[in-house]
């Protein structure tokens, strides 16, 4: 065991709906490093409905790479490490797999407690199937019918500030209790109450005997204060319980992790929040994860985390839902070649049937990346509504300043060249000013978040290692200029080379200057009048030290917001050109 670190070997498992990942970290030269990772199909669905098989297959892959024995003869995790070098010191687990938790939200005031609860519900794996509030004009009996027909796994009740409204909250609770008692005992929903704290005892008295209720701190203790963190923990437990009822194997991971197993989204949010405390406080940190069954957007501003889990947007089973919010032409606009709407539609439905498949043909790859752009664009649009107002730009079109942007998800991580991922992120996120794109190719972020409680140094060490891939520094000038007009001039001095790069970038151009990973350079930017590159206002010049990346320095002067050509042929031509410019296509 190392002298500085309390633990040496950490095994992390993340159970997703499509893939189960296992990652083994160990100490090398006093620092934690990712030693091996394994990935296997998840076995969460029928006929197995047991995650254990997928977990064991992922662990087998780690064993095959490292030769390290992780499980004993009875298939139990060896912990702590034995004198023979088998097993691990610490085990952490996260999971996003499992059936969606059908939830009815019952609140008092729209715009106050109900809005807080909606934000809470949208930050985790809930399937909101009904909302009831005080201004709801339906009769009580209709509300009871709504709850019954929704067949919820969970009813989230909020309302009243601490010491505030009592009677109205008690009426809501009475309604929920009457409806819940009509379910057969094994189908009764769990109730999570996160309203006026003073009513906890009265509520427990009313529903406690026959119903399963969890009392959580008020999500809206006062009109000015919102506290979602504690209620999220109570929801996490309810989600885990609903999941464990229908899928086997989670209890074993829970046991191995010593009861610290987390929801993937919560662990992911924890890492992004941590990073926001390390990086420039003037900017936020953004994490985006395009998964198979949901898309996570985590933005944190000096520790203030805004987490969104879009459970209806993903590159797998929910893919057809994308068409409710977007259109086939919106997807086709990102493609560099002509593709019929029928082809796109068939692809969407086939991918929803077989979400684990990978695009072997180039047309399929480009189509998946186009779908990822739309998913990410929509998810971000929704998520930004929940970001702090003072951090968002006045224009609803422009992204506030965030750095870095950490991206994950198979579609980005598996892209054959880093330029594919970088262009998809540029198109979907449309960052402004100066930022850095970082790819999490192994999907380590949730595991780091889960381990941060017991092994705080893991996150720091792994982020500093090569396990996260920097795609490069991105400069996105903002301002009005005619197409082809100069927007900025740049001077790049590489630290390990005497050859400087001097040039200018014109409106509409996507320029890339390769700077290898591990190299550093001094970048001076002189924007034209009216053009803002993030140095404090339009026309302001500045200099900064930048690090290299898999793509290099990217200057995206295509405009903010990015307006694509209306003519389809011209648009396709430009999409192709940008793929070449960014090095995705050679």
């Amino acid at each position, binding site marked *: 065991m190392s002298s500085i670190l309390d633990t040496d070997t950490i095994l992390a498992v993340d159970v997703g709906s499509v893939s189960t990942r296992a990652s083994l970290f160990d100490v090398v030269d006093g620092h934690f490093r990712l030693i091996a990772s394994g990935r296997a199909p998840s076995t969460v669905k029928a006929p197995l409905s047991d995650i254990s098989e997928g977990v064991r297959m992922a662990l087998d892959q780690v064993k095959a790479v490292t030769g390290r024995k992780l499980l004993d003869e009875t298939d139990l995790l060896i912990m702590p490490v034995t004198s023979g070098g088998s097993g691990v010191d610490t085990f952490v687990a996260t999971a996003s797999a499992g059936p969606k938790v059908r939830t009815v939200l019952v609140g008092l005031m729209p715009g106050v407690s109900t809005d807080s609860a909606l934000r809470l519900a949208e930050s985790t794996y809930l399937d909101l199937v009904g909302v009831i509030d005080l201004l709801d004009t339906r009769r*009580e009996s209709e509300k*009871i019918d709504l709850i019954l027909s929704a067949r919820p796994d969970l009813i989230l009740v909020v309302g009243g500030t601490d010491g505030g409204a009592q009677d109205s909250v008690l009426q809501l609770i009475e309604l929920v209790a009457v409806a819940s008692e009509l379910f*057969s005992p094994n189908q009764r929903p769990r109730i999570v109450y996160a309203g006026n704290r003073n009513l906890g005892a009265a509520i427990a008295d009313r529903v406690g005997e026959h119903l399963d209720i969890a009392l959580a701190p008020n999500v809206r203790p006062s009109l000015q204060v919102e506290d979602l963190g504690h209620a999220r923990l109570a929801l996490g437990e309810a989600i885990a319980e609903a999941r464990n009822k229908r899928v086997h194997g989670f209890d074993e991971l829970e046991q191995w992790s010593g009861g610290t197993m987390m929801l993937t989204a919560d662990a992911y949010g924890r890492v992004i929040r941590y990073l926001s405390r390390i990086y420039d406080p003037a900017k936020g940190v953004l994490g985006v994860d395009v998964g198979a069954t949901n898309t996570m957007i985590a933005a944190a501003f000096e520790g203030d985390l805004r987490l969104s889990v879009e459970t209806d947007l993903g590159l797998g089973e929910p893919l057809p839902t994308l068409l409710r919010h977007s259109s086939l032409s919106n997807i086709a606009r990102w493609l560099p070649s002509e593709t019929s709407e029928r082809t796109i539609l*068939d692809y969407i439905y086939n991918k929803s049937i077989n979400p684990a498949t990978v*695009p*072997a043909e180039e047309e*399929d790859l480009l189509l998946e990346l186009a779908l990822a752009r739309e998913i990410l664009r929509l998810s971000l649009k929704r998520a930004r509504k929940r970001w702090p107002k003072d951090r968002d730009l006045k224009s609803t079109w422009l992204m506030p300043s965030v750095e870095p942007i950490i991206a994950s998800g198979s579609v980005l991580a*598996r892209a054959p060249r880093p330029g594919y991922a970088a262009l998809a992120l540029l198109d979907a996120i449309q960052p402004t000013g100066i930022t850095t794109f970082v790819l999490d190719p192994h999907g380590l972020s949730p595991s780091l978040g889960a381990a941060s409680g017991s092994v705080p140094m893991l996150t720091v060490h792994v982020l500093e290692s090569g396990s996260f891939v920097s795609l490069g520094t991105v400069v996105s000038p903002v301002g009005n200029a005619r197409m082809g007009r100069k927007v900025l001039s740049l001077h790049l001095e590489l630290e390990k080379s005497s050859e400087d790069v001097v040039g200018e970038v014109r409106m509409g151009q996507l320029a890339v200057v390769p700077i290898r990973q591990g190299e550093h350079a001094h970048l001076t930017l002189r924007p034209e009048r009216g053009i803002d590159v993030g140095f404090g206002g339009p026309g302001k010049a500045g200099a900064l030290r930048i690090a290299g990346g898999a793509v290099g320095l990217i200057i995206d002067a295509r405009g903010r917001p990015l307006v694509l050509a209306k003519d389809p042929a011209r648009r396709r031509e430009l999409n192709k050109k940008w793929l070449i410019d960014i090095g995705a296509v050679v």
Partner: protein
Amino acid sequence: MTHVIPITVIRRERVLPVPGAVLVRVNERLQAADVVAEAEIDPKHYYLDVARGLGISVKDAGRYITCQKGDRVETGDVLAGPAGVPRRTVRTPASGRIVGINNGRILLESFGKVLQIKAGFPGKVISSDGAQAVTIEAIGTLIQGVWGNGLQNYGVMRLVGDGPSSRLQTDQLDVNLRGAVLVAGICDHPAPFHQATELSVRGVILGGMPSELIPVARRLPYPVLLTEGFGEHPINAAAFNLFVSNVGREVAVDAGCAWPQPGQRPEAIIPQPSSRQVSHPDRVVSLKPGVRVRVLKPPYQGEVAVVKEILKRVETYPSGIRAKSAMIEIDGVGTKTVPLANIEILQ
């Protein structure tokens, strides 16, 4: 893993969404159309305020309530009162039963719709919880698909066209196919579906159809089952051979798992007589040389093949992606390398 098995033990659970009544006994032999369980679903509720109705205080309301929890009542029956000089009463707005009395309020549940669950295929009841779930077992041919339009039915199977990629066309559909379950390769137009409706067919099994026909398929009165997916995909060779060898036999089509699939795959079951020992399908099969697989993505989508080797090295594909791969032998095509993620085991 997809099951395409000539003969196996098929065991399926039929579960009501809410507790109700199981109508069959263990060891009872069933036909496909037999109702095995039923329950009342989506009943309407009336939350009657007795105090307000009688014009009295909540505290006094209890004294005037004349019904009890569990009582069955008819429309107009008096539930509370009379009270006061005007001799006010509270009457039932609908027939139903009293499911709750609390704080001077009566909760009345009117009768809902009756949901019936059918066996779906001929078999024997092997277990039941008496209220919500029944397990049925049969021996037969099992062919699992990938998508269904949400319905199930049972009928004699007929082949339309001359191969796994033949198109279902209106001129092939005549009165000889009335009441049959049709098997064809592809349907790319709504007209054959509508003509099949005219013929009262009991189901259509296809390899593929364009996804733009999903809304049409969901409105049809008979089950539509796809074995491969969306687009012009013929029925895979293994499944097609089983359909061909069973033409004229009865087939149960369970296309009850419309997207998103809740777990159980849509499937076709062809009951078979068997006196010999028949095994259950494997729940887990390891991917290794000799295992039969089906390709899920272009360029060999829908082809049935045999794994020759699981490659140790990662392969690069035309898209540029690198993936763990297998070498497979496709009948009539030869040996090809495909990503492991793009094949599934066909048992």
